[in-house]
């Protein structure tokens, strides 16, 4: 039996997980249209490969990865591309972003898949390439490209793969359901991931509020030929944070600014493991995921097997949406989710939950009051930070102090805001603080580059002026020498005569000479411009 450690802080909000009946996966059917954002992950948006009007088949790549930290997008079913335009996407800003819109034809015709049963024969690199081509981004919520995470472990020796089946946020039961209906696939996916990174041990962590998922995983793990250990630990929010789970399972803390790979650990979500398994063994790209639709404003909440790109409105109909009881839609859970402003927004790779609460269930937060320095937030913080200090520094925009107090170790779990008796939206302060620090860093890098460019240009202009001066001096010296060598003529008179002779036949070109301070000779810019006739 593995020793289970405790993490600092944490909270016990009402779980409300039974509402969505974990373990029962319902089909979501096929909507009339799918809206597929080009950016469903962290990193650069994918590059479009199709044109408007083109017929596409299921599994066909619609957009390819643009650079290393990017993932492709595939068609979840067959149909016609009817638009490539900016649409509302799940994002806290409520802004629009480029999406590919597919009109589904209902046939669900697929490209032939390329299965690979004997994956043990392949090199890890070839398998990572397959993961990348399948468009897999972390399905726990952040959406970091999985292939990049696997590559990052190249530089480190990974000894343990951790499958994070914690799902600690209230209401959400998508991973719980997946562990119950696809435990074997999770184990297979974990075996592949462990093979890719060379991990000897697979460790699966499940919170003890999911007994059915735990027993399903234990049964599946017992069948595996590899060393698979399943550990259960007490329910506490946010045990599912990567660094928190590592501490619970191993007692080790990931140092500030480092990644789990530095400790020889790699964490993956069960959804990601299944997506990797499907990509390798079946050759199937990531085009579906499990989404929890829950909240008391739904008459039939549950977990749905959803095509990516399905508009949320389609799912709300299936789950018995009662609009009269609801004022807001939340993407994600009650702790870390954000509100959506319309129901036409599609499900993306990172959408694990759509929460549709009634006003009594999740009331609009009351206005924030003054911080009374009670310190409850510091007791609740799972990263052992000082939330109230960070709050004051964020308000004062004191970036140095924020960094000194390790703002970047904040996992934005919302535990501090949950316990705050003054209802201060603490996490938003931290997000704004992080954003402004990152912005300052980027602006600094940019201004350094601009300074270099400016100075390089100044230097070039000075050098060219000097060269011109040197040439002129040389010409003058040569002319003087010529005169001294026996020219009887007065050089000044000769020059005037030459100038007169030159002036007569041609047009006067007064503007030929350019200001040497602005225009260097070798610059194409100085080619005399007669053109702009003003």
């Amino acid at each position, binding site marked *: 039996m593995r020793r289970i450690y405790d993490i600092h802080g944490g909270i016990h909000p009402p779980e409300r997980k039974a509402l969505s009946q974990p373990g029962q996966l319902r089909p979501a059917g096929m909507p009339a249209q799918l809206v597929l954002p080009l950016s469903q992950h962290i990193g650069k948006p994918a590059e479009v490969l199709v044109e408007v009007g083109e017929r596409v088949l299921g599994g066909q790549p619609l957009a390819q990865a643009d650079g290393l930290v990017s993932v492709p997008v595939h068609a979840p079913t067959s149909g016609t591309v009817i638009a490539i335009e900016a649409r509302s996407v799940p994002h806290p800003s409520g*802004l629009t972003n480029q999406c590919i819109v597919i009109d589904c034809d209902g046939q669900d015709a697929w490209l032939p898949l390329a299965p690979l049963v004997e994956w043990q024969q392949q090199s890890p690199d070839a398998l990572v390439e397959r993961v990348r081509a399948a468009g897999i981004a972390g399905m726990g919520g952040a959406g970091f490209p999985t292939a990049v995470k696997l590559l990052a472990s190249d530089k480190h020796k990974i000894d343990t793969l951790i499958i994070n089946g914690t799902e600690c946020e209230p209401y959400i039961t998508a991973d719980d359901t997946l562990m119950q209906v696809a435990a074997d696939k999770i184990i297979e996916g974990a075996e592949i991931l462990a093979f890719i990174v060379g991990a000897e041990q697979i460790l699966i962590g499940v919170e003890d509020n999911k007994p059915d998922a735990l027993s399903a995983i234990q049964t599946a793990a017992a069948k595996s030929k590899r060393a698979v250990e399943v550990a259960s630990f007490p329910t506490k929010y946010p045990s599912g944070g990567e660094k928190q789970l590592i501490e619970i399972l191993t007692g080790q803390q990931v140092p500030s600014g480092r990644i789990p790979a530095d400790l020889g650990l790699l964490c993956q979500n069960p959804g990601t493991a299944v997506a990797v398994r499907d990509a390798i063994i079946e050759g199937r790209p990531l085009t579906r995921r499990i989404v929890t639709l829950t909240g008391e404003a739904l008459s039939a909440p549950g977990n749905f097997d959803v095509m990516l790109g399905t508009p949320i409105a389609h799912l709300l109909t299936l789950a018995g949406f009662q609009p009269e009881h609801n004022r807001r839609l939340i993407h994600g859970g009650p702790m870390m989710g954000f509100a959506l402003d319309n129901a036409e927004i599609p499900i993306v790779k990172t959408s694990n939950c759509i929460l549709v609460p009634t006003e009594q269930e999740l009331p609009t937060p009351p206005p924030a009051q003054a911080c009374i320095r009670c310190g409850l937030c510091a007791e609740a913080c799972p990263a052992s930070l000082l939330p109230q200090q960070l709050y004051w520094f964020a308000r004062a925009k004191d970036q140095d102090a924020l960094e000194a107090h390790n703002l970047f170790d904040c996992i934005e779990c919302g535990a501090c805001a949950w316990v705050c008796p003054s209802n201060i*939206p603490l996490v938003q302060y931290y997000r704004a603080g992080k954003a402004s620090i990152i912005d300052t860093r980027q602006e600094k890098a940019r201004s350094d580059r601009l300074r270099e*460019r400016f100075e390089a*240009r100044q230097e070039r202009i000075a050098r060219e002026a000097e060269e011109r001066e040197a040439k002129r001096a040389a010409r003058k010296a040569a002319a003087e020498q010529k005169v001294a060598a026996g020219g009887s003529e007065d050089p000044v008179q000769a020059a005037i005569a030459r100038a007169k002779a030159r002036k007569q036949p041609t047009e006067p070109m007064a503007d030929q000479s350019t200001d040497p301070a602005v*225009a260097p000779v070798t610059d194409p810019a100085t080619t005399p411009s007669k053109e702009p006739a003003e």
Partner: protein
Amino acid sequence: MWAFIDNYPLLAALLALLALGVIFGALLGFASVKFRTEGNPLAEQINDILPQTQCGQCGYPGCRPYAEAIAGGDAINKCPPGGEETIQALANLLDVEPEPLDAEHGVEKAPMVAYIREDECIGCTKCIQACPVDAILGAAKQMHTVIGSECTGCELCIEPCPVDCIDMVLRKSGIEHWQWPLPAPRQTGLDIIASDREQAA
């Protein structure tokens, strides 16, 4: 030697002091040559804070000249692209009171970049000559274009353009540049707790 010190204490003390003076003088002289700083380190630090737009709105031909002027005692509030933040940073560095931006030199706006409407460009190269950071590409009678990532948004190319085909567009727009804003300040404006407010009423 001890005998000399015993016999002539005054002279010995003077000699010792003289020797110390010579040694430390030599050390200082050596250090001043060895660890000599090129240029004006204060101007260097100030230049580091300035936004490097090179726009000349301060009245100097670029950020470095303005940095040197500030080091020489000029006002710190003449830089509209830097805005409040730059003034604050300069005030901290120089240990002076921050002043509001001098409106004579312009107002603070969101960062912009120049954009050439390419089908209207006649290829006169005047904007290329005006650009302080060589961020415009093109040749005579060929279309020009702005390298957006390198443009400082100084607007110096706008005036020389004979056909007015250069627009200034927002540098940070769209979803990838969106940032979480700080929560709106509370309406009451005062950080008082509920019981305080009851008493105040």
